[in-house]
């Protein structure tokens, strides 16, 4: 392995000890902005974060005042609901399970989790960091989009198109 060569600006003198004595104000080439284009966390970042919190809280409060969470009849082990659905985020998996239990229940979820865990170790190219939909990563973006779209489509079918007896029907 090759190590990056470290640039020593001030070579250390082994006979001396060093410590930071003071930070002085100075003039930098960055006028009106901090070194390396940084800004003070307080207030610039914190205020935005607090604002976002307010927005989230208000949104949730608004929805909660308008719509009630579902509560059906008390659980009854003697009567299955028709159809019986898993929570929406697992409905895509359930849709696969209704084609093949092993494929949908085990193979696909395991492949998704393992794939996600290994992703950063398989895609080692440093290109395209920090840019949305970088053109350097066409293949990766396409593959991931296929995955996302597949999930969304499966969840949509399972959640909205599957009616009683798990028959495909239009939701309206």
């Amino acid at each position, binding site marked *: 392995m090759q190590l990056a060569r470290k640039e020593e600006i001030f070579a250390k003198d082994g006979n001396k000890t060093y410590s930071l004595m003071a930070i002085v104000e100075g003039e930098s080439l960055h006028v009106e902005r901090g070194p390396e284009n940084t800004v003070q966390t307080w207030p610039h*970042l914190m205020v935005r974060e607090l604002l976002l919190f307010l927005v989230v809280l208000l949104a949730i409060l608004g929805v909660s005042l308008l719509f009630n969470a579902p*509560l059906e009849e008390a659980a009854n082990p003697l009567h299955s609901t028709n159809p019986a659905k898993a929570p929406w985020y697992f409905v895509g998996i359930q849709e696969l399970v209704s084609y093949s239990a092993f494929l949908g229940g085990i193979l696909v979820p395991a492949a998704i989790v393992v794939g996600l865990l290994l992703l*950063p170790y398989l895609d080692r190219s440093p290109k395209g960091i920090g840019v949305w939909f970088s053109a350097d990563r066409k293949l990766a973006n396409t593959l991931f989009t296929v995955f996302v779209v597949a999930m969304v489509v499966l969840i949509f079918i399972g959640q909205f198109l599957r009616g009683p007896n798990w028959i495909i029907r239009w939701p309206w």
Partner: protein
Amino acid sequence: MNDATYSVKDAIKQLPTNIKQSFTRREAGTAEQEQAATVFGNLFLHLHPVRVHANALRPSYTMGLGLISFFLFLILVVSGILVMFYYTPSTELAYRNMKDLEFAVSFGIVLRNIHRWSAHAMVAMVFLHMCRVFYTGAYKAPREFNWVIGVCLLLVTLFLSFTGYLLPWDQLAFWAVTVGSNIASYMPWIGDKIRFLMLGGNEVGQMALLRFYVMHVALLPLVAVVLVGVHFWRIRKDGGLSRPTEE
């Protein structure tokens, strides 16, 4: 050593200032120093560095999705603890407790709604956050391991939501969990054992409700808090949020 004179009278006069100062641990400085001290002098805020790169502030970059997930988690903790005051993990009482929340407890229904809708929203937001991290290539070196922690967080979020789903003990809950636990039993060799351990028995009953409850209110939130802590700490250690290389 010169003996300063301490008088009770002075102490009372300076009471507010002294209390405030002991609380904030802050001494006067320049505006920048004080702003910096606000962040590093606070246990919770010092997860942030004192200065952040301007790119981290661009709403169009992160879309705030990770932060929204975190805020939803906070809302879930608070509303969840409140709902717990009226909830018993028993097959006889759970459903009645839900009805009580709806009809007999002041703001009970609102709190239940908040808890339920935030839970759904959190699953969606965490997923979107993952998409954002992917599409901006933010999982690449040196942030690989934070992505791994993120995947664990996604799983914990899903399990939190799933275990919570059973607690109202209504038809929706019962059959969704019956179906869900049977999906797990398709695992080769150990599937049935896992289902037995998960439900604490052969069927979705009292033991299953209790197990899901313990996971939902104690174990999984604890894991989530620890993982979120590590997730945030690593963002700092990895040099702040990802950003394009500067020209």
